[in-house]
């Protein structure tokens, strides 16, 4: 009917164009949510592969071990022995390097591209995998994860797992099993299909979503938190975690998929960060820590996780690898902006899992450069009359022994300090607001956290009390 109305409008206007009334295009819109299509055979195989621990060398690890469904498919510090990084390897004693991110909405990530020169998209926190399928293959053959020696070992384990094998053959046929590398590629494709097709990976069922749909009410604190989130001189969170749709989805994804260097403090709970580190489980040496060639000689430490510029590079067999940024030192320290959906249930936070709660994260954001009394900080910013209200003792930037570190941005070689984003709110530059006051008060931080908690999926408007939000979302939590 809408099209007919438009054509009628065109016709009547073309003939006479005398009357203005009734010549506009109509738009009724509407329509309900269609039922999700049945998952493909690939996706069904992918689900089986995702949770099949027998495909790992230890027999105890699958994708789902480090991407736990109840935690929005992110890591679980409990199973990781309290570490901010997963444990893996043949004996499940080898710690990884990065905090396992949530896989919810990961399939909506664009492939890596340079947006007017700005790195954008890609998979893994450093975008080194060109697709979800490429990313999904890697843990199978990574020594400190599922620890298969190669694709041949993966194939052998698949052949020894009848239920998974049956689904795999249903999706891909049996001929591919004669080629181990092709089999591993199809394993990646199957897992990617599972993440892309299963609605559990993109439910858009948070309280925030239902509020937009008019089916839930945000509290005053939550609404104020969203306003502060959007306010360009308060939280300014939306600058990198946009609350507006960006074109990657019909919904806001709370990430723009760009890369940023925000100077997160070094996390000494990551074993690799300690020189000569050994496994906290078995004591074996961590001989798989990469040897970096692009760490300047005057750096304080020998190993740094620098995101885009290493230490990890695109896989040799990635058919469409992103450029190598190993020598682009201005990108050292840049990590992909993660989605904030379900952030309340995906602690710890940041690529290195340095902060355990959202309150600490926001407190750190708004005071990062205030009174960080590290040893040789070339330009320490004095705290205002009230001092730093959130880090009243010490500094987040500590050395291995807990004392203030030599430099503020201690998870980055000092030669790359200029890469750290200091020009945007909520970082508090020296001359902004007198250079002394954080952009958010304690109450405002509470409100921002309250809003972030509304991004947790699974809100049932008919049973709001059953909403799965953790303790840190409770009123008064800090």
């Amino acid at each position, binding site marked *: 009917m809408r099209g007919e109305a438009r054509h009628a409008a065109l016709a009547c206007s073309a003939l006479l164009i005398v009357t203005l009334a009734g010549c*506009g295009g109509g738009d009724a819109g509407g329509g309900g949510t269609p039922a999700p299509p049945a998952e493909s055979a690939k996706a069904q195989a992918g689900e089986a592969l995702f949770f099949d621990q027998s495909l790992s060398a230890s027999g105890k690890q699958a994708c789902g071990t480090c991407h736990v469904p109840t935690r929005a498919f992110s890591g679980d510090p409990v199973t990781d022995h309290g570490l901010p990084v997963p444990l893996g390897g043949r004996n499940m004693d080898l710690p990884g390097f990065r905090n396992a991110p949530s896989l919810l909405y990961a399939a909506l990530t664009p492939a890596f591209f340079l947006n007017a020169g700005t790195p954008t998209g890609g998979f893994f926190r450093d975008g080194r995998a060109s697709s979800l399928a490429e990313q999904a293959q890697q843990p199978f053959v990574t020594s400190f994860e599922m620890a298969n020696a190669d694709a041949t070992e993966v194939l052998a384990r698949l052949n020894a797992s009848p239920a998974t094998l049956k689904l795999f053959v249903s999706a891909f046929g049996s001929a591919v099993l004669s080629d181990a590398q092709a089999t591993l590629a199809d394993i990646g494709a199957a897992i990617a299909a599972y993440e892309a097709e299963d609605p559990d990976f993109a439910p858009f069922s948070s309280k925030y979503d239902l509020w937009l749909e008019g089916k839930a009410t945000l509290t005053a604190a939550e609404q104020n938190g969203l306003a502060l989130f959007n306010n360009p001189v308060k939280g300014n969170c939306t600058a990198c975690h946009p609350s507006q749709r960006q074109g990657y989805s019909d919904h806001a994804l709370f990430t723009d998929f760009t890369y940023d260097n925000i100077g997160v403090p070094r996390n000494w709970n990551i074993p690799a960060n300690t020189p000569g580190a050994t496994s906290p489980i078995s004591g074996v040496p961590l001989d798989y820590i990469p040897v970096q060639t692009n760490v300047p000689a005057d750096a304080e430490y020998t190993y740094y996780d620098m995101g885009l510029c290493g230490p990890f590079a695109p896989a040799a067999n990635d058919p469409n690898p992103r450029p190598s940024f190993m020598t682009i030192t201005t990108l050292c320290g840049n990590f992909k902006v993660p989605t904030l959906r379900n952030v309340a249930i995906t602690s710890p936070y940041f690529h290195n899992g340095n902060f355990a709660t959202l309150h600490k994260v926001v407190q750190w954001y708004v005071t990062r450069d205030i009174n960080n009394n590290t040893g040789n900080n070339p330009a320490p910013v004095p705290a205002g009359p009230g001092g730093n209200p959130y880090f009243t003792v010490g500094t987040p930037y500590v050395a291995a022994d807990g004392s203030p570190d030599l430099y503020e941005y201690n998870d980055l070689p000092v030669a790359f300090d200029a890469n750290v984003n200091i020009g945007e709110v909520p970082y508090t530059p020296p001359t902004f607001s007198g250079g002394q006051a954080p952009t958010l008060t304690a109450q405002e931080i509470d409100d921002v956290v309250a809003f972030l908690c509304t991004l947790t999926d699974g809100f049932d408007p008919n049973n709001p009390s059953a909403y799965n939000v953790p303790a840190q979302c409770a009123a008064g939590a800090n």
Partner: protein
Amino acid sequence: MYHSRQMTRRFVLPVALLVFGIPRLAAAAGDDDARLSALQHQLEQVQAALQQLSDENRALREHQEEVDRKLAQLSAAQPQVSPPSQVAAVPPAAPAAGAAALPNTSALPNSSALPNGSALPNTAALPNGAPLPPGPVPTSDSPGGYRPLASLGGLRFWGYGEAYYTDPTSARKESQFDLARAVFGIGYQFDQRTEFNSEYEVEHAVSSATDVGEFEVEQFYVDRRLNDAVTVRAGLFLMPFGLLNEYHEPTNFYGVQRNFVETLIIPSTWREGGFNLHGSTDSGFGWNVGLTTGFDLSKWDFAPEFPTYRNALTLEDNDVAPLQATHQELALANAQHLSQYLALSYFGIPGLTLGAAVTTGDAVPVPAPPNAPIPGNERVTLWEAHARWTPARWDLSALYARGTFSNTALANVANPGSPNPLPASFYGYFVQAAYKLWQQGDYAFNPFARFERYTMGASYEGTTGPVVPLGIVPLSAAPGDYGTWPLNHDRVWTVGANFYLGQHLVLKTDYQWFQENVNFKRFDLGLGLAF
């Protein structure tokens, strides 16, 4: 004269055929009566054809005389603020009935006031009933008053451009010298009733993926004159709103830059794709009605991290105003929703132009999640009214424009804390007075003063308005780049002068004071030309 030559050629050919053809036919008739009869029949046909040609010739001569008469009227209407050369060429006289005051804020009414180089010899074909034919100097020997510098058959070329120096006196580090635009036009007259016009613009001198400039098609349309009173136009054309939009050549307005109301409230240069019918009457009424592409609210940026403008120049250039930010310029324009407009003008009293226009249509809506409630169509409406009066040496003008966006509440509610919510209404007005103070030879000096008020957000739905950050805030991600967040409304005084060097060239200067964004005050110098 061009018409006369053309008509002469068309007349000579059949006569020659008669002179040389008839004797041969007569000789053959002596042999055969039947053939004689046939020849007589053919002769009658030829005589009929001659009569038809004669009638056509008479009609064309009459039409030519009508064109000459109108052109003479136009020439008589021009001396008020014309540069001296024109005054010398056309004695000051009361404009003839049917001629009009300038259809814009023009300081140079006989220069290329029209948005194209139309060659149609029918002033009724001009948009908004504008009485002036296109081209810089309406003359009786150039059809339609257009005398392009380059012409090849029906092909015509024209152009205009402007460069200016802007010095924000409160932030001199932001001073700029810019070739704001260089525009060239190409037209082709297919026949006496049908022509094509187009304009191509390069903004800011260099246009590439890594430069700030843009290359744009500003107009691209075909006119077909249905009769003396009605012309139909189709393609990409300028919207007949206000005093400036269709007549935006630098020789046609006062001030180095265009006024704010006709930039921020009525977008400039505002064009849409579609078609219209337009014409005028001998009594001085002009009309223009059309169906065009509309606006796209999905382009609205609710979350600018930094101010989208930081001085008066970027305020005008950065497409921040409600309709600037959402117009489509026929670049893969969404055509699900179309708008319709009506523009009326009256120029029946010499020296006076009155006009008004309104457009309305549904817009491409602000994106919402799939299951979100539908707020109803988001309709964009804009109307304006303007007047211009040019008694003696004076040039007085005024304009009011107001726009509305409907059903914006849900979009604003979903974006609390936004420094840039969607307005429900916006408006602006200005009054301007100019005076031809001095003239000598080809020179003329016309000072002017203008007061204008604009607000890009007069009212809001779903929010109390923009959350305007207070105090000194970052203006960009560059460390140390701080300042105040500008307001989206202001009152502006402008004083300055246009100094004409002949009819095609103008030097301008002005100074502007802003009552709200006081740091926007600026001094400008400009060079403009049109041919």
